[in-house]
């Protein structure tokens, strides 16, 4: 899967389980996870809101 692939291009016709796996794979290609908080990128308000 290409990192630049759009999520909306991937999800049409998938079952919920396939969708979950696709989302996980998509994040993996970006080497990013929803729990990762980058203080150099996130604004102070957004960073602290995620604590």
């Amino acid at each position: 899967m290409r990192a630049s692939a759009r999520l909306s291009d991937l999800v049409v016709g998938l079952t919920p389980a396939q969708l979950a796996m696709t989302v996980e794979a998509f994040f993996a290609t970006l080497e990013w996870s929803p729990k990762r908080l980058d203080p150099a990128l996130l604004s102070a308000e957004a960073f602290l809101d995620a604590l």
Partner: protein
Amino acid sequence: MRLTDLPIQPQEPSLPVVPVPPMALDALSDEALDALPYGVICLDPDGRILRYNLAESRLARLDRNQVLGRAFFGQVAPCTATPEFQGRFASFHAPGASAPSLQFEYVFDFKFGAQVVDVELFRSASPGRTYVVINRRKFLPQRPVPARTLAPRQADLAPDEVRLGVLRDAGERRRVRVSPLLFASLRASWERVAPKGWGLFSDEWGFQFGRLAVVDLETIVLEKSDRTMRELPMKQVIELVSDYLASEGWGRLTVDFSPAGDGAIVLKLERGAIAEAVGISELPRCHLLAGFFRAIFCHLANKLIVVRECACRSQGFDACSFVVVSQERRAALEEAIEAAEGDVPRVLTLVGSRS
């Protein structure tokens, strides 16, 4: 309640997260006006200054004590003695005028530069009083305007104050040089009067001090970037706060962001002035700085944030460590600090497992 009955752990105060309705300015104390991040001036019908908040004092670089009672248009801000400002103020007060507010854009001309501002005039509930609310939008170099129209410097208003023992910094804020021993003597006084009260008192003191420092920090950010602290990257804000504390002699602040995914960050203060002043202690002693950090983080997050010192240089640790968590993790953090006895990684593990 007797002083000796005071609890050790500070309570989290309510935090005003909703902007103050301008019509309510009259009801605010001077202390509450000072916590607002924008300029507020109260004028009588003749334009004489009745109230002047901290943000305005900081941004205009004028000491409130020197402007109260003076003529705003004639003495303090001659750049506003124009039809576009003073004329609108007069119309706002003209017989029969009843509009509750009037908004316009203006440019203030100071001797240290110009400021593009949004001005809003509000009719006070007290007859004849007008509140002038000023939001800075942009900072410019000094403009080529007649010298007589430039707002005066602090030294113009009080030329003799150096002889009278008044010290000021580059921003014309008054300074008092004190030794950290002041904190040692203050703590010793609490030990004599109310040993359990020190933590509560100094945390609240630090919180109130931090709220005022926020105004100062926001001004620094605004002058440099036309943005607010909340909008800046978290790392940049921490560097700003760290430099601010170091420039005032409090020690060097660094932050470990790595536990953020588990809901905490750790502030580390090296060579902390309070910890080194109060002497050897069994318990953390930098409640004042914990309160200070709490005010900064509550402001940044726009919600309640908890900051607790879990290891202190006064206990023999290399540096003072403060753990920052959301209000929801407060109880877990306090239990973890109690159990971990200064072991910061263990505090983080416990907080993560109990949340």
